[in-house]
Every structure is written in structure tokens, then in C-alpha cells.
């Protein structure tokens, strides 16, 4: 598909998305859309570090949580939302910088486990020091409207997709992919692997922090520990892989599919079944279909022509 065609279609979709709140008033539909967009942002942010740079960060929830917690706290204390969001993203990025330096010196496996453990530590800490749910004060609850939440989610999703897309076509993207393919060879070709891994990590965590901010703004009541729940990482990872790791469309399709499946399955089957289904799909993809749904579509197209 040519670039012009691609942009036109994307443009049309964006316009449609912008107009949705005008025509749709059903809260469940709006919630579903808001969540899909949230997942698109979150999974795309992981895609940058895990899919393009090849560093499987299993502690992504930590950055989502930091963003969410800070945004909610600041916003509830009166900070204008945009400022709070920026603060949330920055906080996530600062944290990423602090742990990125030592973490990236660890060889492959250790990095993956290290980030997982880190997120767990944060969850335990916040579960303990903030055990009570944060509930919106009654004034805000009365004024609660889904529309601004939807638009915020849309903006962040567009930002995430746009940013990752731009990077994927740039010199930075090429460098990241070279690191993914072979770190030693990348170094030998002049790529400062530590610097670029950190760069991807910072952008990725900043976006995750923003996604967390969206969630913080959206949730009427939420347990702070839940903001750091490992599910946020895992959902992002399985969405990216099932959709198509290292592609732009992959996380988008994956997110739509994931939330749809979640809603559908929750109607008939016990909660959490969608995780089971996606988990099985995930294993299948890792073993037999590394390109995910996007790869599958490509293969089918190729066979058809």
C-alpha cells in the first residue's frame, strides 16, 4: 500500500474517531473505545523497546504506575490535567533513566528478569504504603463525563502511534533494529548501543507514563497498587506479540482484538478467560507464528497473489 493511501486511510479513521462522541452516547461503547485506545498507546509504547529495540522489558507496569499515581495525585490536588500528565511522563522517564543505566549493562536475560522484579518491588511498596482506594471526590464524580476521557485517550494513542511510526522510519529506528538483530554487530558498525537502548527506553516509558495518566484520569476509584499490577505489562506484551511484534499495525490490531475478546468472553465465561485465550494465542505465536496477526495477513496475501 503506498504511503499516500496509507495516510489517507489513517486520516479518515482519525476523523471518524474524533467524531465518535458526537454520534455515540452509549457509555459502554465509549468505555470500550477508550480502553482500546489506552491499550493501543500502552502496547505501542512497549513495542518500541520490546519490538523494535529487542529489549524485552517485563517491568513496563512500573512506569505505567508511576505515571498513573503521579497524575492522579497532582490532578486531585488541583493541578491542571495537562501539567499533571507532563509531570507523570517525566517522572516515569526519570525513573527509567535511573534504572536504565545499570539495567542495560546486564546481559539479555538478566535485563528481562531484572525489570520484572523491579516492577514487583514497586507494587509491593505501593500496596503497603497506599492500601486504600483513591476515590474521586463527589464534586468530580458528579461532573464525571466520559467524553474528555475518550479524547485524552485518543490523543495519547495518536501520539504513541505517530511517535513510534516516525521513529521506525528514521535513523534512530534503524539503529534500534540493528541492536535488536545483533548488538555486537551494531557496536562494530558504530552504534552506541547503550545510548540508543536508553533513548528507546526513555521514550517508551514516557509514553507508558502518559498511558498511566489516561487511566488515572479515567478511573472513578482505583487502588494505587493496581496501577502497578503486572497485568499492565503482560497485556501489553501479549497484545504486541499476537498483533505482530515490531510492526506499527500489530499493536493496533492486537489491542482491538484483545479488548473485543475481553468484552465478549466476559459475557459468557468467568472473568479472566480472555487472558487464557490470549495466553494460548501468545504461546502459539511465539512458537509458530512470530509475525503475529500481521505476519499471518502478509502470508495470506502472498499466497493469494
Amino acid at each position, binding site marked *: 500500500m503506498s504511503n499516500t493511501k496509507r495516510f489517507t486511510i489513517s486520516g479518515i479513521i482519525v476523523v471518524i474517531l474524533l467524531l465518535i462522541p458526537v454520534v455515540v452516547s452509549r457509555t459502554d461503547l465509549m468505555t470500550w473505545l477508550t480502553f482500546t485506545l489506552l491499550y493501543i498507546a500502552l502496547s505501542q509504547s512497549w513495542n518500541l523497546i520490546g519490538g523494535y529495540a529487542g529489549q524485552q522489558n517485563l517491568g513496563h507496569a512500573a512506569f505505567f504506575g508511576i505515571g498513573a499515581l503521579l497524575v492522579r495525585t497532582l490532578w486531585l490536588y488541583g493541578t491542571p490535567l495537562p501539567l499533571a500528565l507532563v509531570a507523570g511522563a517525566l517522572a516515569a522517564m526519570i525513573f527509567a533513566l535511573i534504572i536504565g543505566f545499570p539495567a542495560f549493562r546486564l*546481559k539479555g536475560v538478566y535485563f528481562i528478569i531484572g525489570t520484572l522484579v*523491579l516492577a514487583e518491588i514497586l507494587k*509491593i*511498596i505501593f500496596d503497603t504504603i497506599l492500601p486504600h482506594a483513591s476515590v474521586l471526590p463527589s464534586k468530580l464524580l458528579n461532573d464525571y463525563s466520559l467524553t474528555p476521557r475518550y479524547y485524552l485517550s485518543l490523543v495519547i494513542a495518536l501520539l504513541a502511534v505517530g511517535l513510534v511510526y516516525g521513529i521506525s522510519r528514521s535513523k534512530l529506528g534503524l539503529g534500534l533494529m540493528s541492536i535488536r538483530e545483533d548488538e555486537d554487530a551494531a557496536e562494530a558498525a558504530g552504534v552506541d548501543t547503550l545510548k540508543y537502548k536508553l533513548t528507546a527506553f526513555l521514550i517508551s516509558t514516557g509514553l507508558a507514563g502518559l498511558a498511566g495518566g489516561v487511566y488515572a484520569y479515567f478511573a472513578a476509584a482505583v487502588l494505587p497498587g493496581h496501577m502497578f499490577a503486572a497485568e499492565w505489562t503482560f497485556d501489553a506484551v501479549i497484545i504486541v506479540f499476537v498483533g505482530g511484534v515490531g510492526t506499527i499495525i500489530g499493536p493496533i490490531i492486537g489491542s482491538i482484538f484483545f479488548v473485543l475478546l475481553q468484552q465478549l468472553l466476559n459475557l459468557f465465561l468467568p472473568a479472566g478467560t480472555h487472558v487464557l485465550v490470549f495466553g*494460548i494465542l*501468545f504461546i502459539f505465536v*511465539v512458537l509458530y507464528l512470530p509475525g503475529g496477526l500481521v505476519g499471518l495477513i502478509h502470508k495470506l496475501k502472498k499466497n493469494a497473489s
Partner: protein
Amino acid sequence: MIALVAQTFVNGINVGALYGLAAVGLSLTFGVMKILNIGHGEFLMVGGYVAFWMLRLAGIDPFIGLPIVAVVLFLFGAVSYKLFFSTLSGFHEEQKIKNSLLIGFGLFLVFPQIARLLWTGDERAITPFYSGGSFPILGIRFGYVPLAGVLVAVIVILALHLFLKKTYFGKSVRGTSENWKAAKLMGINVNRTYMITFGIGTAIAGVAGILVGLTQSLSPGVGMEWTLKALIVVVLAGIGSVGGAFFAGLILGVLEAVGAIFMGPYAVALGLVIFLVILMFRPQGLFGKA
């Protein structure tokens, strides 16, 4: 005061033995096959549930039923290996490690859900008639069950150690882990060796699961918690040090118990922090080879 410290120490050893046992299977699998199975804890959970239902439905005492659980988990593990991990053995090392992590992660997603569907999310404890009993020595309480647990852990690890050192199969496992190409040339069926090793690892995890069910409780989500514990111990001990895993487990157990006195609920984070510190400053662990 001394009594408190001593009791804490004993409690720490009790839990630590479990940590060590939980870690041994993981260490074995990673040392031999370079597969880091994040789903390791899931097999522990299944083992615990099997023992639970054996007691509940058939009245079989968990210690007597231990061999049954071991066999069941061995087979379960071998089949899992065949299904999920054997395709990985062809990849070159870094890819294999990354993919095995992903697969383990997939198992971690899937197993708890299945467990929840089958057995509900309720917490289960394995409670034979003698659980809760204890005897005092110098004012320190020694629980029957935890003590038996430590004993079981020691026996299992010793047995494994002897198995690897003395038997032909054990030697072929070690040979395959050193150099699988050479092992293959010597006629060792590498794939089968891997499968059996994996099965042994999961069998041990299953046994650990019984002990967890006896001394703590079981729930579908227990897997990840124990995988993390096992990971900490493996890293603390050093990859490839199977015997060291036991001692590292004891160390972790005692540290957590002591930490709980001063840090309360944050003590759990202590283990994780130690893990990170070791990872950064001494990645080969306390007993491992550099």
C-alpha cells in the same frame, strides 16, 4: 530476645528450605538447557493442588502421596517440554533464552486461568490431622510439618545430587549441559535427555508445591510468587549451582524472616532488592562460576 531471634532463625530455615527446593528445579533446567522457565512456579502450584485433592478426595496423606505427585509432575513436565520447549533447542543461544522466557511467560498466563476455572480462586491449604502440631526445644517451637518439609527438601536435593554424580543418566545430563554437540556425537539422545531433565525439574517443583500447600496455602496465583522466589535463589546461588541453590534458599529464608521483624510487610521487597543488587554487582551469584 534471644528466643525471638532463634525462633525467627528456625522459621527462616523452614521457609528457606522450601525456597531452595523450589529453586533447584529451575537451576537444573537453566543450567542444562539454558531454558529459563518463568512458568516454573506454575508446576509448583499444580503439584500442590494434586496433593490437596488427593487428601481431600481420597484421604491420601500428602507425604505418602509425595511420590505420586512427583511422578505426575514429571510426566506433566515432560509433556510440556515436548509441546512447548523442544522446538527451541534448535535456536542459537540468545534467541533460545529470549524465546524460552516468552514461552514460560505464556505458561504463566495460561495455567493460573485454567486452575481458576478448575479449582476456583479460593485459597487451599493441605491440612492432614497432624498439621499445626509442634514440639518445643529450649523454648523454640519446631512445627512437625515444617520440619518434615525441611527433611524432604534435604532428601530430595541430596538424591538429585547423587543422581547427577553417580548414575549414568546423571552423567549424561551433565555431559549434555557442558557440550551438547559432543554429547550427541557420543550417542546421547540430547532431546530425550532434555525432556527428562525438564521433567525432573518440574517433579521437584511439584514436591515443593506440596510443602507450600502444607505450610502456607495454594491459590491459582501462587505460581508467579514462587517463580520469583526461585529466580532470586537461583541468581543468589549462581546459575548452574544446584547444591548452592539449597543454601541460597536458606539464606533468603532467614534474611526475610529477620527482615520481617524490622521491616514488616516490606520484607518481601527485601528479597527482590537483594536480587537486583546481586544481579548488578555479582551476577555469577555466591557459589556460581564466573
